[in-house]
């Protein structure tokens, strides 16, 4: 048995409910996170992901359910006693304190000796490559540097669980990707358990070991990134992820064995291809190019089948033109059946 499996879960939430202003905003949330892993709470604005993060932190009151962090029930505890570190969307750095003092604030507040807090601060400053900026104040730093200070400050008291609320949303796109990649490397090196809120699908799929897609205050789907990309579970999740083609009816010859009575079929966009001589006829159908959407790394082709069903296709090496009629092939092994509702 893997020794990590004998340790308690980093986070174990059981049927958690939260109401704000008399309205229930989180409904029976249940999820688990293994130690050393990162969970991304992914969803559109207003779906409750930040509220869930704040409930884990103890910053909002819960109406029911259990929250265990590293095996310890924390539902009735204040944030100070939960063993968490939190990175806020705005970073919430203390503007009157230097970078060094911001990072040392948590350890000192928790009663560490000054020498131990200093040593920990120096270690983290080196880790986030900000040793040269230790005496500067947050206002003197760039956005990316402030983000790293916030990360170091949250990690300083050695929390059992790191909570991050949209940590990269305030950073320019060009800096976001390298920053999140360096965070991922750091998180894995430290085996730091982490829950991250994001509405950025790319970010969630790149950084997280588990992705919880939240819709309307519920966990609509919790899976690994690869699992989600293979099977979104519901139509709402597939539509939110935006990486699936929806087939109201599977091609007559295409009936995956695992689906008893599917309502709808979905398949990853990247699995749809132009038919060629080797494509079995049963997999094929025709559609017309409606629009081309050029992107940095690929061009997405918007298609319409004869019955009006919209589809997407990743353009290959040969450019396609609007109005062109295409013969396409969809492998049945990539089709999965999904239910029609978000909570189903």
């Amino acid at each position, binding site marked *: 048995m893997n020794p990590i499996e004998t340790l308690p879960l980093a986070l174990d939430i059981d049927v958690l409910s939260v109401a704000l202003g008399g309205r229930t905003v989180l409904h029976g949330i249940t999820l688990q996170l293994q130690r050393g892993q990162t969970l991304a709470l992914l969803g559109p604005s207003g779906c409750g992901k930040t509220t869930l993060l704040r409930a884990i*932190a*103890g*910053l909002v009151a819960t109406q029911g359910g259990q929250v265990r962090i590293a095996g310890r029930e924390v539902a009735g505890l*204040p*944030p*100070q006693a939960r063993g*968490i*570190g*939190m990175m*806020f969307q*705005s970073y*919430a*750095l*203390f*503007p*009157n*304190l230097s970078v060094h003092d911001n990072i040392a*604030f*948590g350890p000192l*507040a*928790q009663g560490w000796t000054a020498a131990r807090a200093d040593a920990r601060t120096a270690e983290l400053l080196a880790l986030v490559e900000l040793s040269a900026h230790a005496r500067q104040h947050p206002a003197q730093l760039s956005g990316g540097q402030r983000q790293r200070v916030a990360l170091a*400050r*949250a990690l*300083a*008291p050695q929390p059992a669980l790191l*909570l991050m609320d949209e940590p990269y949303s305030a950073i320019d796109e060009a800096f976001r990707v390298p920053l999140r990649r360096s965070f991922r490397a750091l998180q894995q090196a430290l085996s730091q358990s982490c829950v991250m809120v994001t509405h950025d699908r790319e970010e969630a799929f790149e950084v997280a070991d588990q992705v919880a897609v939240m819709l309307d205050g519920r966990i609509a789907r919790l899976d690994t990134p690869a699992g989600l990309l293979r099977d979104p579970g519901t139509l709402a999740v597939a539509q939110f992820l935006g990486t699936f083609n929806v087939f109201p009816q599977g091609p007559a010859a295409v009936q995956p064995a695992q689906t008893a009575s599917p309502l709808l079929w979905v398949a990853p966009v990247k699995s749809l291809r132009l038919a060629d001589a080797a494509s079995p006829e049963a997999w094929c159908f025709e559609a017309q190019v409606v629009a081309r959407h050029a992107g940095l790394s690929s061009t997405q082709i918007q298609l319409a089948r004869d019955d009006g069903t919209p589809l997407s296709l990743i353009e290959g090496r040969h450019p396609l033109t609007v109005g062109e009629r295409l013969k396409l092939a969809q492998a049945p092994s990539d089709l999965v059946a999904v239910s029609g509702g978000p909570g189903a």
Partner: protein
Amino acid sequence: MRAAARWSGAGLLEPLALVLLLTAVVAPPAFVLLYAFSERWDRSLWPEGATLAWFAELGQDPRVAAAALRTAVVAGFSATLATASGCAATLAAHLYAPRLKTLLDALAQLPYAVPPVVVAISALEVFVGGLGGLIDIRLLYVLLLTPLLFPLVHRTLSAALLRMELGTLLEAGRTLGASDALTVRRVVLPLLAPAIAAAGLLCLLTAALEFAVANLLLGGDNELLQPMMNSLRATSGHRSAALVVVSLVLVGLMAAAVQRLTEGRKP
């Protein structure tokens, strides 16, 4: 069309209004300034002879020095009391009691709704007439002035607290294991220091310039500078003007200090 508008009455109205406004605001202090620096201004339309004699006389007048000292003490006490109590109440309201904040917002309107003369006459009736001798008149003045100064503290601090996103800072402190008291002491109060200093200076300025209540409540041995400026006019308008000029310079310096403490500063 533009040319027509330029020559119409509407085109002239703006500069005319501006000139009138500037005249109304600038002319009185300008005349007082001229009066303070002139030997006499009673024989023609123009002042005669430049002099600093009125200022020199002021410096040698023990009545002025005593009134200035009393004003500084009374204004200092009032400003300190108003700043300390106002800071505590406003901070507590922002931290823990949104309802208290609503109440304080309403209380901050009250001094503008009740004229100072009404406050002074009521105080005279109750504490000097009805309960005469029960309380020192100077202390009574300080206690009356403190609530009149409260809006300055409450508004200045509330604006600073809203700018600093107090709630997020406290939450950050909590997730780091700090008590709210520690975060307030190490982070919030240092960030608020310029706003507290500005509020204190504003209170000091307002208390030192208060006339209506001081004129009714304090006289004789307790005379303050503002009522004295008014009474000096009877004996020497030039000396009164010189005192006004000195007051204006001090007010200007303090206003500049307040501006310096508050402008463009994110706490």
